[in-house]
């Protein structure tokens, strides 16, 4: 009946649904259009595949590797030290001898910038790790146990959010000499709350799922459930948060050293370099550009990687509230 060829030839024109760009794929349509991969892959394999196809993330990873290599290795190729004062060569522009030029004391800016970059990297890594660890732990405890533990931890989180982080950093920075480790610890102590909130929210969600009930009825202890069953689900989101926190830490640290706090001269950070350069903003305005762009590049690279991680580990992203 209906399958017999029609009287007129079949219309082979390709049509697209109207309202093109605005009409979008709704998730339920894709449910019906089942797309399996050829062979079942582990979550890790799938995640890696997704990360690899995220072009920005790869760009970010390459950029970060290049920057790290530059910061730690490049100064070895220069005959100058970061604190070599050489008044005769002061305030020069870029040249073959001094790739980034020299500052008012004749110090080679390239080596100083690389050294500053090292601080940015190390502080961001340490801060990210501490903040992720502390935030992850407290968030997990708050989310899983609920009740008074949650109330207490949430109260602490709110407290930290009410205290202006900048003010604390300023107050402490003025009084105390802060080396990179103290700096990292301090910044971590002020930004861990974001990670904690994310982990707590996820914990609350997952806590009710069947696999947790199954583990409980099999007699697993709380710590076992948290570590073995829940954390792997949360680890992805925590990792993404950690990268974001690392980026934030770099910006915070550079702001502080720009204001003259934290790490002090003759040590140099990118923030200090910008601070030193702003004095000659009229004569050589470009001097603030280099350390500033380095900060931007580092944070950009970290953010790209963070985005790639988010895509890779949780393709159906949920809005953070």
């Amino acid at each position, binding site marked *: 009946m209906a399958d017999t060829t029609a009287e007129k030839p079949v219309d082979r024109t390709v049509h697209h649904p109207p*309202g093109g*760009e*605005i*009409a*979008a*794929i*709704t*998730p*339920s349509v894709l449910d019906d259009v089942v797309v399996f991969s050829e062979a079942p892959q582990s979550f890790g394999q799938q995640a890696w595949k997704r990360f690899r196809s995220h072009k920005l993330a790869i760009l970010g990873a390459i950029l970060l590797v290049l920057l790290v290599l530059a910061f730690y290795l490049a100064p070895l190729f220069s005959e100058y030290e970061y604190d070599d004062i050489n008044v005769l060569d002061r305030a020069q522009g870029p040249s073959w001898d001094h790739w980034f030029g020299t500052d008012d004391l004749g110090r080679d800016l390239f080596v100083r910038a690389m050294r500053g970059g090292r601080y940015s990297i190390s502080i961001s890594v340490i801060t990210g790790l501490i903040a992720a660890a502390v935030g992850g732990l407290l968030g997990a405890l708050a989310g899983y146990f609920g009740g008074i533990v949650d109330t207490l931890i949430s*109260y602490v989180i*709110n*407290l930290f*959010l*009410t*205290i*202006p982080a*900048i*003010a*604390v950093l*300023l*107050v*402490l920075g*003025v*009084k105390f000499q802060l080396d990179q480790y103290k700096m990292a610890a301090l910044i971590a102590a002020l930004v861990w709350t974001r990670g904690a909130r994310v982990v707590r929210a996820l914990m609350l969600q997952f806590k009710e799922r069947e696999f947790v009930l199954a583990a409980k009825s099999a007699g697993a202890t709380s710590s076992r459930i948290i570590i073995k069953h829940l954390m792997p689900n949360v680890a992805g989101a925590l990792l993404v948060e950690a990268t974001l926190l690392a*980026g934030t830490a770099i*910006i915070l640290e*550079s*702001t502080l050293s*720009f*204001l003259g706090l934290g790490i002090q001269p003759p040590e140099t950070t990118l923030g200090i370099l*910008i601070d030193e350069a*702003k004095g000659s*903003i*009229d004569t050589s*305005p470009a001097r*603030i*550009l280099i350390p*500033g762009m380095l*900060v*931007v*590049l580092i*944070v*950009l690279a970290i*953010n*790209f990687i963070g985005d790639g991680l988010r895509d890779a580990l949780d393709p159906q*992203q949920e*809005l953070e*509230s």
Partner: protein
Amino acid sequence: MVNYALRRLLAAIPVVLVATFIMFWLVSSINDPLAALRQSCPNCDESAYQRLIDLYNLDQPIPQRYFSWLGNALTGDFGVSTSLGEQPVSSIFWERAGNSAMLSIPAALITIVFSAILSMYSALKQYSAGDYAVTSFTYLGLAMPTFFFGLLLQVFWGVWFQDWTGLKPFWTGGLHTESVGELISSLVLPITTLVIISLAADTRFGRTAMLETKNADFIRTARAKGVPERTIVLKHMLRAALIPMVTVWAITFGALIGGTLVTETVFSWPGLGRLLVFNGVFAADVNILMAVILFIGFIAVVFNLLADLLYGWLDPRVRYG
């Protein structure tokens, strides 16, 4: 709803109190005005020391000092400034607060309006050149430290533009009130600095919110009912995306009001931020420090509460009776 708001406010009060107490304790333990006086004025006699002791209640233990401060604060007396010629803190505060508001309120409004427009545009024209431009902008904005962007603006408009055209349309520092025109041209650069970074963050979030809404099932239902596309975007999508976006806007608003610190420093703007940094922290003026911190904490609480209330108002699923 009013009940809920009151309950939240009441619950927030202890948090603010504890936060201010911690800051007070921190600052008081770190600063020793007597030692500072000893250093700066070795020949000062007993009466100078006694004055300091009276001023700061230095003969009392810290908690007691805090409660004296608190008691006075509740009646509107925030003490006297030690770094600004013993003026009452309240009058200094309000004047500076007004200056800061001149920056933060327009910046917040511009951010809200433009992030809405950019998010909608970017989500509706996904994958277009415009979308890529917007996304690139958000990445860049999130990687840029505020102070660096401010400096860039100063370099561009204060040095390069002037070199190229001989004109300097905008003030690169300071609040100039000689005429309305001067006022406006001194506002432009600092407001732009404030706007760019929060605009990047809000647009990023808004774009994600819009994309998720665009793909929602209820949009497909509306289309299936024959609702015209324009109505779908302006009534259905906007209303749904507004729920998360408004909460982010409320928080951004609060953050801008309390976060002009760096911008004011870079642009020599006589606002609360600079008051906090130079007088409160660098000059160890405790009364000023506490007043500003109390203000920032209060703002944070109020706008967070506002964010929650707006969320409840806009999303019927969450409403509190």
